[in-house]
């Protein structure tokens, strides 16, 4: 019984950590180049929305995922134009776009399905199912926990290691980090600051869109207003906790999701003396605690969130 609880909890945490990790890694890379993109929240939501709509009308989950990626890319490209090319304030732009996205998705959703929430909300029939990795998944105990997840999960983990390697062991990573520390110097040295940022944001768009799609066509089979519920922001906090290191982010997201998984289990148990709202609050409380603990001495890329204008 106990082992089941533990294995269940670990399994859930791995599931839950996937969207956080994906968003976090993408944002980590972008922040390493000096851009703070609060709009991951909105892009994620847009991804969720797009994936659902496309899945609903085409019944094709693959295309739905791709269109989520596309939606994310469009959002992030818009953000890039405003913050990289026009050098607008990154925080305010990201925030504004988030508000915009919540409004747009809710509106378009209702435009398609009617203005009042019906008792049975529109949903898709099939969701993305976890895959089973051959051989490895047949191992007792560990096989169930580790090797029966959505393909996205494995991609996320691979992404984590790749990101770490790229950032610290390659020339590309060096350039990205240089931009994040001092874009003027990087520009002088011949690094194309704006293009690099655009590319990173493009990648982020795709990844974050896909992460969002997980919510609406994998974990659930429907779309809800403001479905992301602040998860994008939580990812940003986790990046700070991880001191902008992909491997630490992997560990951090796992710990966070573990707590989240436990919270959900408690909720499911329906314990009367433990208010449900407290469980629901837990992720946000934990985030605050994370920020308290890690946010103090966190030294991020020196040029984070500062606008960059070429001086020639």
């Amino acid at each position, binding site marked *: 019984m106990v082992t089941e609880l533990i294995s269940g909890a670990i399994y859930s945490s791995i599931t839950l950590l996937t969207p956080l990790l994906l968003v976090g890694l993408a944002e980590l890379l972008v922040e390493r180049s000096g851009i703070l993109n*609060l709009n991951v929240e909105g892009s994620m939501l847009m991804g969720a929305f797009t994936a659902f709509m496309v899945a609903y009308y085409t019944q094709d989950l693959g295309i739905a995922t791709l269109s989520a990626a596309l939606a994310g890319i469009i959002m992030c490209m818009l953000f890039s134009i*405003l913050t990289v090319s*026009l*050098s*607008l*304030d990154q*925080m*305010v*732009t990201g*925030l*504004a*776009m988030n*508000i*915009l*996205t*919540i*409004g*747009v998705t*809710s*509106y378009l959703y*209702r*435009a398609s399905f009617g*203005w009042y929430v019906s008792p049975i909300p529109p949903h898709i029939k099939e969701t993305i199912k976890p895959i089973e990795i051959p051989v490895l998944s047949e191992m007792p105990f560990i096989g169930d926990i580790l090797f029966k997840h959505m393909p996205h999960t494995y991609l996320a983990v691979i992404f984590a290691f790749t990101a770490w390697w790229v950032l610290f062991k390659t020339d590309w990573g060096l350039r990205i980090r240089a931009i994040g520390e001092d874009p003027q110097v990087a520009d002088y040295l011949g690094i194309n600051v704006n293009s690099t940022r655009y590319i990173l944001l493009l990648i982020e768009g795709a990844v974050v869109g896909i992460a969002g799609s997980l919510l609406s066509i994998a974990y659930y089979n429907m779309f809800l*207003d403001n479905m992301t*519920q*602040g998860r994008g*922001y939580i990812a*940003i*906090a986790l990046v*700070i906790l991880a001191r902008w290191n992909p491997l630490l982010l992997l560990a951090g997201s796992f710990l966070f999701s573990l707590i989240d998984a436990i919270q959900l289990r408690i909720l499911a148990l329906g314990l009367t003396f433990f*208010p*449900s*709202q*407290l469980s*629901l*609050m837990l992720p*946000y*409380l934990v*985030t*605050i605690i994370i*920020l*308290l603990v890690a*946010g*103090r001495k966190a030294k991020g890329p020196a040029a984070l969130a500062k606008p960059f204008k070429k001086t020639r």
Partner: protein
Amino acid sequence: MAIGIAFLLGALILTVAGADPVVAYYWLFYGAFSEASFSETLVRATPLLFISLGLAVTFTARVWNIGAEGQFYIGATFAAILGLHLKDVPHPFALIIILLASVAGGAAWAFLPAVLRAYYGINEIITTLMFNYIAIYTASYLLHNPFRDPASMFPETTTLPEQLWMPIVIPGTRLHAGILLAFISIPFLYFLLRKTAFGMKIEILGSSRRTAEYAGIDAVKLIIQSMLISGMFAGLAGGIEVLGIQHKMRLEISPSISPYGYTAIAVTLLGYLNPILVAATSIFLGGVINGSMTMHRMANVPVGMAGIFQALIIIFIMIGYYLEDKFASKLLERLKLW
């Protein structure tokens, strides 16, 4: 001008949605500003006004208080709960005590994120946002369990006794005395921000923290002060909304199409952080919200338009800022070099 573009885009969306934009806009403006509905507009604008005035203070200091929504909720909840226990206190005093409580509640809610930002530089956008969710869940808990109205099937408190309702200013409408308080706040805040040493300190802090320190300003204290002020206003808005309109606390107190706390952010930015413009904008947006409901009823247009409008407006305003800045600096570069 930015607003104009937003409207054009809105018209586009409307047409796509199958509604006639002209008719829709007619109903929008009728619903917002006609004699019949202007009071309603003011009603909607009241909480917006309070919150955005408070936000103007922190935004000027470049402290981004996104937690107005949560502070609003806490203020409202405090007001309702206290109200239920003050049945025997004479009329004017009870109101004042309740309002003070909601002010305190809002400020308290802003306190922790303020401290985290002031002492440790922790991003207040994330912390205040987290606190919003925590606030809503806390309120939800309180409304489901200890303070729930046994007679109602919704999670809400019992209706407050009539003596605790805010007096109506214009008979026949829902317009209550809260609007008077709001109107007093406008010049008060304008004076505070533009004409006092405190306001100047905030401006300097907003320019750069290092400069503020150089100027001898206690940045830590100031950040906390500004957040508290903004929290107080948001809390007050909650209390007034409870006492004046809802007469109880419910979870839907902040309209989901355009939550007061978040909409106020747009209002403050639109008003260029200037209290007078901000006030005008809040009335305008109150009208938009109100009008979109009419628009929805009469012209079959989706209620979500208000949300979209706002966001569009913010983005265009910011582009406007950028263009203006660029234009102005080009202009001044010529002057600079004489």
